């Protein structure tokens, strides 16, 4: 679509992105900054908190991008994405808490979580998409709430509301110090290893998603999104494609969940299953730009930044409007979701393409003129 050239003449960089660039200088710049900051976060920021935030951004990039596969490319709204996120995290947490910090437990646990998530993704899709795509949204909502309740009720397995705290394999643990002195000004320790594990896996998954949506499979998904009947008439089994997309998105979300569990060395219902995370994902994907993959990535970074800066800004406004109680109540720092919700509605109504989609449209417009 954008800067499309025959495969043989494409540069390595373009091949890495599957020929799909952000499509506008501003979007490319934002993406470059994001990748640069994430790649060198441990060098750029001193505190462990800042690095943990960078890791969180990387994980949410994968989570939001995998959700975009469903929302933006396949045109179905799922509310169960956090359930799959949680399944991956619980897979790791249960395995490591149960049988100690070994790599084999980590692999078995994540494989179980990811596999179960993919199967559940297919199951929900087959049950609901057989009828109407709109059932899918309603049923995923119901299934997600069941998952949340089960996680807090099955106390013996999941640790209930308290969740599970566990140790990770020594190589990833904060107490791992191979060198007593910093190397090139950076302390090599388990935290650093964990960070780069998260970064590399996230980067690979994002590139995989780019590859996927620019493959013939992704093209069929977009065809279904644009016109379901025509795709069916052309001979594509719509249910099969949608179910596969659901399974792939579920598996990717589960991998993001395993990364989250490794980062926090803890998992509970509030950290991976809560509905507020689902809302965060929706905001990231829609505000960033559905159906672009880059949009959700930028959206994820913006959301994490917004959570840092919006609350102080609202605090300021609340103090400024203190003489007017109702106005001041609207600007309470706890009400940041109100403003993001409004922003979300405005984007859906007036800029359905989101940040990256709108930028791309402007880029195309100026080129054709």
């Amino acid at each position, binding site marked *: 679509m954008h800067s499309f050239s025959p495969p043989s003449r494409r540069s390595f960089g373009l091949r890495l992105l599957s020929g799909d660039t952000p499509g506008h200088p501003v979007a490319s710049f934002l993406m470059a900054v994001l990748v640069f900051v994430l790649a060198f976060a441990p060098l750029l920021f001193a505190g462990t908190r800042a690095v943990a935030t960078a890791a969180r951004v990387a994980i949410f990039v994968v989570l939001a991008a995998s959700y975009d596969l469903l929302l933006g490319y396949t045109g179905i709204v799922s509310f169960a994405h956090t359930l799959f996120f949680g399944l991956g995290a619980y897979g790791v947490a249960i395995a490591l808490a149960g049988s100690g910090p070994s790599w084999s437990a980590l692999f078995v646990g994540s494989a179980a979580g990811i596999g179960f998530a993919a199967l559940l993704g297919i199951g929900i899709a087959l049950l609901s998409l057989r009828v109407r795509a709109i059932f899918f949204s*309603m049923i995923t909502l119901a299934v997600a709430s069941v998952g949340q309740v089960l996680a807090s009720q099955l106390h013996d397995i999941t640790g209930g509301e308290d969740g599970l705290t566990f140790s990770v394999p020594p190589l990833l643990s904060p107490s791992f110090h191979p060198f007593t002195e910093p190397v090139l000004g950076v302390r090599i320790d388990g935290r650093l290893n964990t960070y780069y594990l998260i970064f590399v896996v996230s980067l690979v998954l994002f590139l995989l998603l780019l590859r996927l949506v620019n493959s013939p499979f992704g093209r069929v998904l977009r065809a279904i999104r644009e016109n379901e009947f025509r795709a069916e008439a052309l001979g594509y089994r719509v249910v099969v494609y949608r179910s596969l997309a659901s399974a792939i998105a579920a598996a990717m979300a589960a991998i993001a969940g395993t990364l989250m569990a490794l980062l926090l060395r803890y998992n509970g219902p509030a950290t991976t299953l809560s509905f507020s995370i689902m809302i965060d994902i929706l905001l990231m994907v829609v505000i960033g730009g559905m159906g672009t993959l880059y949009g959700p990535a930028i959206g994820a970074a913006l959301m994490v930044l917004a959570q840092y800066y919006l609350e102080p800004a609202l605090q300021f406004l609340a103090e400024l409007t203190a003489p007017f109680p109702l106005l001041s109540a609207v600007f309470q720092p706890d009400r940041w979701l109100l403003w993001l919700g409004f922003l979300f509605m405005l984007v859906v109504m007036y800029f*359905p393409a989101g940040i990256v989609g709108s930028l791309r449209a402007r880029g195309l417009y100026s080129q054709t003129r």
Partner: protein
Amino acid sequence: MKPSERTLPVLLVLLIAALGFAAMPFTDWLTLSAAGLAMGMMLFLMVAGLTLIFGLMDVLNFAHGAFITFGAFAAGTVFARFPQLVASDRWEENLLILALAALAAALLSGALGFGFERVAIGRVYGAHLRQILLTTGALIVAEQLAIVIWGPDAIPVLKPAGLRGSFLIAGAAIEKYRVVAALFGLFVFLLLQGILAHTRIGIIVRAGVENREMVEALGYRIRPLFAGVFVAGAALAGVGGAMWATYAATVTASLGSDLTVLIFIVVIIGGLGSVGGSFLGALLVGLVTNYVGFLAPKLALLSNILLMAAILLWRPRGLLAAGGR
């Protein structure tokens, strides 16, 4: 739809009641059935509008729960404003305050529905994806606004004095308020069915659910009709929320989003677009929730999902889907 296909779902409700009867002592069964009926009728009030809106304009409103929340808060506010009527020992004053609360709930939610249809829903006709996103955003905003207006903490909703407590029938304790709620829900159902079956507007609404283009081709403007149904549905959801909060004796801003899952299950079971279907679906959910909660408390949370899955396997479009949906 053949008559036999219509009677089977009714038989299913009776079958569930009979299974419950066989599985537990009679007094428990009676208490739980009354509870299930009341819960079902309150759910029906909440979903009637939702299913009609979908049937008429293919609009699925994820923000429907917001009308429930605001209705519940309106009722709580009315009860708090007239404590002497709430505490009065004269039953007509108790019913008066209950009616006032329901009226306030209907007015507030109806007005919200009117504004929401005007400002937001009208822009996303025919685009399911954007509808779901927009209405989900609206649910978030509405919940936050409810917190701004009524605060983040739960607000007590005192039921009128005469409706507290329970009475005994054949040794089974039945709460008075549940009987009132069930009777009121049944009344609304019959009223709705009457309007839909026998008035001119009802006939156009039913025809619109079956085939909108044909009704438009015959010269009826369906858009204002839809707006009317949307407002009426929102008002009913507000009344349902008021009844629910009065029963639960408390209301929080998350009431609507908490109930969203349950009302969607009811709508899916009933078949999108069918008032009769959602009536049966609400009854099924109410009865099954109460029976399973008694017989196997651990299964209670899963029971509604399992019920929905079973019904979708039997009838993929729900019990009584309308308009070939």
